[in-house]
């Protein structure tokens, strides 16, 4: 966790993969808005100084009441930067702020996206618990945390690695062993040391563990609304990589009947679902593409079938991107942003 807040290191709005992720998240919410309607909803998040997600929540979903949580030291600057009058900035720690919000506020469904700068820890888990315990039906609960294995794994080179020193073991300490898929559980080698999950697989593991935790938390609490049992339907298991590996995991608190509607909305976005219609791990790690490259690729899209026609057309146009990067672009091109410099 860097001492310098991320908003002082880069402009949130100029990160390609974060931008794509944000659009994917709001795509599903927009689809649900058509069916569910968000006129009663409020928005909760960490608007920071840029309020990227807040702008989308207001513009795309029409949500008028938006609450941004900001550490006291930075709250004044955040208040200055709030984009709409409907945004209020609450100063303090997220757990304390949420605990002190009025019952009337919690009585309304919420779209909550807690986009943390740092890693999963006990405070994040407490925030998740609080949100899931208070969220009304058709509320969305989404979190973003660091997803790099190196962040979680202790830098200890001596003696045998204990289970709780592996990255999976550390996550297990926060979420409980039940949230750890058996295939990822650390196994002991012949010497007795615990073997960690491969680095490349850690973000996918983390999205699954957090989604499982959320699902279980709502099931275990057995909350009911007008006789209907509430459950948690995972919608997002995203991994984006700009300067750091970050994972975004979330879903909705729903009744059985509403779950069907949300599932239909999710299925409209094949990138996000597996063959069974469940939220699927989705890695977003595109390299920056120039405007010229983008125009060249876009002229060939949408195509049908595999990557071959696009690759052939790209090569014919003299494009020198790697095949993998072209394939990734093809997957996300509808959400790929263009950033341009302007003089104000």
């Amino acid at each position, binding site marked *: *966790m860097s*001492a310098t807040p991320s908003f002082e290191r880069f402009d949130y709005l100029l990160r390609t993969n974060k931008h794509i992720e944000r659009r994917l998240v709001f795509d599903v919410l927009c689809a649900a808005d058509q069916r569910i309607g968000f006129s009663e909803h409020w928005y909760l998040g960490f608007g920071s100084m840029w309020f990227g997600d807040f702008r989308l929540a207001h513009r795309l979903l029409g949500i008028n009441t938006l609450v941004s949580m900001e550490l006291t030291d930075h709250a004044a600057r955040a208040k200055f930067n709030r984009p709409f009058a409907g945004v209020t900035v609450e100063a303090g720690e997220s757990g304390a702020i949420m605990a002190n919000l009025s019952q009337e506020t919690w009585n309304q469904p919420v779209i909550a996206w807690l986009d943390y700068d*740092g*890693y999963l*820890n006990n*405070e994040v888990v407490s925030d998740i618990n609080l949100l899931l315990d208070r969220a009304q039906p058709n509320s969305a609960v989404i979190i973003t945390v660091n997803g790099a294995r190196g*962040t*979680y794994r*202790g*830098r*200890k080179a001596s003696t045998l690695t204990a289970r*709780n*020193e592996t990255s999976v*073991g*550390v996550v*297990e*300490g926060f979420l*409980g*062993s*039940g*949230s*750890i*898929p*058996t*295939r990822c*559980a650390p*196994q*002991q080698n012949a010497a*007795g040391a615990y073997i960690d999950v491969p680095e490349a697989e850690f973000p996918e593991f983390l999205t699954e563990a957090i*989604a*499982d*935790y959320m*699902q*279980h938390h709502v*099931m275990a609490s057995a909350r009911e609304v007008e006789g209907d*049992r509430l*459950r948690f339907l995972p919608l997002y298991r995203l991994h984006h990589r700009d300067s750091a590996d970050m994972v975004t995991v979330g879903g909705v608190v729903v009744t059985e009947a509403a779950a069907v509607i949300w599932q239909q909305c999710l299925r409209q976005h094949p990138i996000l679902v597996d063959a069974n219609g469940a939220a699927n791990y989705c890695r977003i790690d595109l390299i920056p593409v120039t405007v010229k490259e983008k125009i060249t690729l876009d002229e060939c899209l949408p195509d049908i079938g595999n990557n071959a026609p696009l690759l052939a057309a790209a090569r014919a146009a003299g494009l020198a991107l790697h095949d993998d990067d072209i394939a990734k672009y093809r997957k996300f091109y509808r959400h790929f942003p263009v950033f341009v410099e302007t003089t104000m």
Partner: protein
Amino acid sequence: MANNDIDEAGGSSPKRIHADATKDFFVTMITRDISLRDCIFDLLDNAIDGARRKPAAGTAQPLNGYEVRLTFDSNTFRIGDNCGGIRLSDAIDYAFHFGRRPDSPADVKGGIGLYGIGMKRAIFKVGRKCEVTSHADDASFKVLIDVAEWEVKTEWDFEYQDIERAAGLGTTIEISDINDGARELLEDPVFKNELLRDIARDYAFFIHQGLTIRVGDDVVPSYKYQLRQSDQLAPSVEQFDDDGVKVRILAGVVDDLPDDIPDELKPDKVDRYGWFVICNDRVVLAADKGLETIWGVDGFNVWHPQYNGFAGFVFFNAEDQRKLPWTTTKRELDASSPLYRRTIARMKSVTQVFIEYTNRRKQDLPAARAAEMPLVQVEISELQQSQPFKLPVISAMSTRPSMVNISYQRDRREIEEIKSHLGSIAMSAKDVGIKTFEYYREVELGK
């Protein structure tokens, strides 16, 4: 008021009080006494007993080749095996009977099925419709159970149909129309993860014998029960026969012993500590730290985090499983069993040796820690020879350094920052304090 029926002996002629069982009792009442997980384990037990009837000969892995497959979602629960099937003759006369009939044929020796209730109770617990299909060496058949229809009928019998023979022998139980409570669990990914973990732990001794158990696409991993051993550290092994039951008691150290009491302890951190009770290779109690075994019983110490790192194992093995001290759920022990009470006395005795050591080691923690370092981890199945509990000899330090506690508060974010910089976000705040103190001594004092 005079009662003309009373005879000279002070009683009337016998009259009838109704005591018939009701189906509702079996469908909705006894299913409350057992968890969904333990119902599933009852079905696993039946499959394993089937495999034990025809073990592979001449091998250390007599259950090699046998496999049990569990699959489930919110609509269907299915368990299938290749463990020999239910013989038609057994099905007609015994297997579907509620409770074991007195004329039941002798069970598989050393088996784990016992009361004649597990399969029916599991079906009722999980759902309202069921199809049991069996291919055994005498016949192939299926039984269709519609619980709602069966409940309103007067007779208790189920009907079966002959079916085509299949290549392999085995049983499949498929349950649908899942009950609400079970459905929520079956679609909970954490339930599935915990089921896999518990099967690994409680059926470890069968998996070591070659049995394969699958849950969905996952093969249940092999769980290792090991105890530490070194020159100064060795587990105790005690064994005796008691009325046809072989009892083996192991006790030892499974992890680092704590130097002090941690601020908080989550269940995952202590799930290898405590007493384990195993009946005919099936783990009945795991990591018990309460009244089910010795802790807090008749004046014995209650479990304390100071005992973290201790693990004890009691194996009860009997050819006649009715002699084992377990209850119908196979998740509790029968405290009234004289055999169990006699065993508890010995468990207390060996645990007391360890408890006294945890107090003694405080006199010289560095020496204790060094002596406790394991040279090897011993599989408990290899510990077959009786031996006493060997623990390091600790003598009081001649000159104990004068120690003081340091306590102070800092902003949580600053602590997190240091944790991250030290490369261990899971470390405790106390360890952050120790590290930063050591850093000051090293950098500023050169020590």
